């Protein structure tokens, strides 16, 4: 198992390399160059040259590329142009809020989506199947900021159950009230994905011969579903939870903006508004690394659920 895990991590290195290269190219695609965009139209030639020197834009491309890679590998992502603090510092300040939000929403999504998906598959073409399929299709259709705004209007403004503005209070109960709406907003969208995959994956497994055999020899229905079917049906579900991580990050950005929560989302928005390109670039690199780590962990999880994967 440990060897399998190490292999997976080694395979992630070329992917990381491609992603970093793509980010490097993207930042150099800025029309004109980053310096003129940051300083605007009224910039003098001298100040442009000074900023180019500071950003290293006056070096030849291959030198820029090598120093870019070198700095990323040593964990130096540059300094925010607007606050002057290092990008890593900026991110570490808000990261706990985003992690808290995403983890709680994953728990909500899986806790609701998995049982619903199983119920829909077991009662195929019954009312519970139709209702949960329609609910999941609606869930898949919501852009995260649209569902967020509707929840904010209904539950915070009209009903007043939850605070409209995120108050930064240390009281745990208040913290939970602040977290509830954004976490459910992300969690319900995730539920839609999990439910859909669980349903189709369970349908596939329930049609297998060994399930028929187990049923014929008198295994009780509950045990048949939970022990014989679910374990095999889980692999695609784990894939979706892993793949969904990228979408989840995007959605959490929108959700944080709507509910005025501190986090990576507000950091991105601030960087966009102040044209802080080094912060944006640094954030993209951090996202890329997160996505790769989660994908690798997803791969390793297959090995835990299904021993066959390890020996392929």
């Amino acid at each position, binding site marked *: 198992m440990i060897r399998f895990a190490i292999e997976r991590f080694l395979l992630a290195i*070329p*992917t990381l390399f*491609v*992603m970093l290269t*793509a*980010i490097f190219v*993207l*930042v150099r*695609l*800025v*029309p004109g160059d980053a310096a003129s*965009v940051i300083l605007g139209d009224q910039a003098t030639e001298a100040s442009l040259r000074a900023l180019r020197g500071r950003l290293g834009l006056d070096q030849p491309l291959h030198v820029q590329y090598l120093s870019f890679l070198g700095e990323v590998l040593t964990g130096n992502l540059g300094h925010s142009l607007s606050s002057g603090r290092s990008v890593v510092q900026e991110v570490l300040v808000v990261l706990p809020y985003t992690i808290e939000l995403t983890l709680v929403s994953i728990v909500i999504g899986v806790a609701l989506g998995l049982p619903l998906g199983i119920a829909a598959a077991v009662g195929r073409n019954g009312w519970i199947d139709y209702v949960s399929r*329609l609910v999941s*299709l*609606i869930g*898949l*259709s*919501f*852009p*995260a*900021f*649209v569902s967020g*705004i*509707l929840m*904010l*209007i209904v539950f915070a*403004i*009209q009903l007043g159950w939850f605070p*409209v503005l995120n108050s930064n209070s240390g009281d745990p109960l208040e913290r939970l009230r602040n977290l509830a709406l954004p976490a459910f907003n992300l969690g319900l969208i995730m539920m839609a994905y999990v439910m859909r995959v669980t349903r189709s994956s369970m349908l596939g497994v329930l049609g297998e011969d060994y399930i028929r055999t187990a049923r014929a020899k008198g295994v009780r229905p509950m045990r048949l579903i939970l022990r014989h079917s679910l374990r095999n049906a889980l692999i695609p579900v784990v894939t979706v939870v892993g*793949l969904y991580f*990228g*979408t989840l*990050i*995007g*959605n959490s*950005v*929108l959700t944080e*903006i*709507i509910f005025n929560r501190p986090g990576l989302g507000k950091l*991105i*928005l601030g960087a*966009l*508004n102040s044209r802080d390109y080094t912060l*944006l670039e640094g954030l*993209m690199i951090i*996202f*890329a690394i997160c*996505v*790769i780590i989660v*994908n690798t962990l997803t791969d390793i999880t297959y090995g835990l659920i299904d021993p066959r994967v390890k020996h392929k």
Partner: protein
Amino acid sequence: MAATSASPSLPRPGGVWLAFSSNRLSWVGLALLIAIVLIAIGAPLIAPHDPLEQSIIARLEPPSAQFLLGTDNYGRDVLSRLIYGSRISLVVGSVAILIAMTIGCTIGIIAGYLGGLFDQLMMGLLDVMLAFPTLLLGLMIAAMLGASLENLVIAIAVTEIAPFARVARAPTIALKQQDFVVAGRALGFGPIRIMGIHILPNLVSDIVVMSSLWMASAIRTEASLSFIGLGVPPPTPTWGSMIREGFENILDAWWLAVFPSLAILLTVLALNLLGDALRDAIDPKLRGE
């Protein structure tokens, strides 16, 4: 050549139509989509007011007989802006998907047909693109290029290339071993002719189905980017930017954010319903044949 009509991934057309037309939800999706397209085309005829006309006395009016869905912060009619906003969503969504489809399918077919190192390289690259969050990739590209209609289309198109390439590649690998392709090669047809005339037509139904699902995603991304402020610049009405403006006045005028939200939801839902029904219809496994 009988093999053309009996390729492995494609069921008979009649069966597809039957499966599609017997699914009630597919009709709901189709009807909704046709209605939205008609609204977008006929916007000047339907809209009760000029979507750009401002009025200082009629600011933030709640829904009334004169302004059915109320007015915004500049006194502009929300219903008219909503009607015109459908144009941006549909145009950006469909143009971005057309570009992504063209580039993605070309890459997918060539990679699948040639195989080998080119295939491995392209697929590795596309896996990376797939892993990266769509919204963040779009956001990054739009932020780097600057906010405009063209850049928005480019940003969204780039994020949707990878899925099309994957959809085109898998059946290409199966098709290139079919007799009619082997025969074409034996007759001395060049690779471009084989890929374009003999392989591409067999992929069309798969690609069309994907398009409606990915157009739903493109419209979602467009709205999200507009909401963040990277969409088509004001005063052009777009649903995402209307929600953004509504969000700023959310405590005084809830209707500003609610109506464009519902418009986006209905459009995306229509495309998803249609795409789902089409996919179920062409997938023989789901049709229970």
